[in-house]
């Protein structure tokens, strides 16, 4: 379970990036946060990973307070970023093995590595290829493999589907669903409304650091998400409206 309580981040004393965010992601649930660029999605994830200290409020994974016990908390968190380059000179297997060991695994057999790599849909010939020859989709799959390998309670994904081709995107969502089946709490930020609609159990709309609206599964099906989202975003971006 992932939870934020009054989580707030103020940059340079006046730029409010995230404002008193309260949300909970249950185990076996996919929570998608939607928002324009600069809405505070990445800041939230950064705070959940203790990359930056929250100005006030706190976040928990399970019952561990992340800002207080970051190292302990990180054992239960996995992360997939928007565009991970990984170690270019390493093969997929080497990258995966390295991160598995960072996650606390003592010994990782090649069979296990290969199984995970296969699971995310990487072709066998790619296992021993250097990552610098990978396409974006392949790198993203490898990123997921790293998250899977860690077997963490919560998985954080920062715009993971941007730049993926349709097939890659679909495969990616399938992988997410599998993780959900395994009972992970999945927190994903995106601005891709359609994929969000497809996969999300709940959706939060983040506008200028405020969580403006939370939609449940039923609401997602019922309402016209697209329109809703654009309304929220448009309300705060009058200039763009005017220019069109």
């Amino acid at each position, binding site marked *: 379970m992932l939870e934020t309580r009054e989580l707030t981040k103020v940059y340079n004393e006046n730029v409010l990036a995230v404002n008193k965010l309260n949300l909970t992601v249950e185990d076996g649930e996919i929570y998608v946060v939607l928002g324009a660029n600069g809405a505070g999605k990445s800041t939230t994830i*950064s705070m959940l*990973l*203790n*990359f*930056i200290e929250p100005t006030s409020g706190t976040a928990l994974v399970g019952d561990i307070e992340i800002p207080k016990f970051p*190292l*302990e908390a*990180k*054992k239960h*968190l*996995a*992360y997939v*970023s928007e*565009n*991970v*380059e*990984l*170690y*270019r*000179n*390493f093969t997929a297997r*080497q990258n995966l093995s*390295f*991160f598995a*060991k*960072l*996650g*606390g695994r003592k010994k990782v057999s090649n069979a296990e590595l290969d199984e995970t790599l296969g699971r995310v849909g990487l072709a066998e010939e790619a296992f021993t290829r250097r990552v610098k020859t990978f396409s974006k989709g392949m790198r993203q799959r490898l*990123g997921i493999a*790293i998250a899977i390998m*860690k077997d963490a309670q919560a998985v*954080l994904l920062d715009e993971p589907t941007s730049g993926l081709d349709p097939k890659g995107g679909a495969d990616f969502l399938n992988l997410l669903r599998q993780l959900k089946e395994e009972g992970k709490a999945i927190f994903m930020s995106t601005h891709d409304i359609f994929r969000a609609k497809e996969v999300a159990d709940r959706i939060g709309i983040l506008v200028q650091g405020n969580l403006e609206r939370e939609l449940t599964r039923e609401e997602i099906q019922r309402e016209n998400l697209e329109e809703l989202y654009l309304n929220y975003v448009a309300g705060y971006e009058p200039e763009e409206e005017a220019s069109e």
Partner: protein
Amino acid sequence: MLITLIRRELLNNLMTFRFAAATFIMLLLVVANTFVLINDYERRLESHNDSINIHKRQLQETKTYSAGEVRVDRPPNPLSIFNVGYDKQLGNEVRVTHIYVPSLWDAGMHGSSNPFMDMFASMDIIFIFEVILSLLALIFAYDAFAGEYESGTLRLVLTHPVRRGNILVAKYISAMLCLIVPLVMSLLLSLILLTISTSIFLNTDDFLRIGGIILTSIVYLSIFYLIGLLISAVTRRTSTALMLSMFVWGFLVLVYPNMILAVIPQHEAPQERKTSAYDKIEQMWQEFDKDRKHYLATDDFPGEDWGYELRGWGSRSSNFILLGNPHTLFYKCRGMMNFHGFVEEVEPKIPHARKHFRYLGSKIIDTAEKTWIVRKPALEDIYIQPANKERIWLKLSPVGLYDAATKTWAGTDVQGVRDFFDAARQYRKQVIDYFYDIDAFGSRQWFSSDKGAADWSDLPQFRYQRVGSNTNAIRALPDVCLLFMTNIILFVVIFLIFVKSEV
């Protein structure tokens, strides 16, 4: 955990192009230059041996004690291959005579050397390290943080329960391991070449000194790696970090050491220090001259000719003269007499002359010792102190510290060269004692070889041993410590920046 991090970093470094290029270029330069340097050393050694033989022969051929010139030669230091320092440029031929106390400023150079060749900068292995090691360290470091910030791997790593301190330590250790490989490999190769060479003999002390040089090199390497890390952590962008690193390198290695001495106010000892010391010395010699003349006027022999009107075959200088050089505070007296036969009426004068020369010998020795007491501290103030002050300015850059420390290890610093002159002065005392023992000053052979020539075979032999490696170590310690401190400070600063930084 740390092991995992280190292993990844190591693998990552080892697979890069820069590692291969670094190793290749180091080996190439060091091996090629070792050949050249060994050659150069052998040539200098040959020239040294030639000189010893020439001096020995010339001495044997001299028939009188007063005309004999005992000269000692400073052997080239085999470790000058590592850091040539002052080994090549300062005088390597000293006259050991009773008329003055020799110092570095009175030394000459072997006749066969070509002074024009000094125009070309001389190269040594430490210079290669100074330039290349620092460059390599920066090339290894510039993307250590910046690259991971950019590619996002740092974020990914930090999502795992890893302490930032561990990441820093892992990066440091693995990069240092990678950098030490070309360093040690090239040094080993050059050592192999050294030991193969027939003309170079290295003893245990030398190997200890080389060990000291290796250690210092590693510490130096580490400073530049840490500077690179600092830049990388602060700029967070590889292209910026790279550019900044290169300029910092250019400044520290290329510009600062050459520019700083031109920029700072010149350290010169006041002119009065020179003149007052010189006046004092001159006065002492004038006093000596007065006493000498007094002796000539009051002894049993009529007339005041310093040569007692000896006439015969051979040569003598007509006057007994005093000579000085106010720049080096050098002062001596000269009166040469070298006969190989006398006309008959001279014989009764000879006992007087012998008595006089016996008196003159001890008087000159006393005066020379007395003036040395004035001259030694004056030389120290005029030449050594300003040079030391300039050296301190150079040591503000790690390059200067490294250069100074390795010079000290190799024994090619000014102090190391001066050790030889201490030995030469010690030897002068032995020679004088020997002269007293055989009554050379009062002997007929002092000025004439008509009844038996001077016998040089029992003259004490000159022996010179470089100081022990422990002395080198003690002398190098302050600089090595400063290098260490710089390392620690840099490391702490990087740690604080990295721990506080947001990813």
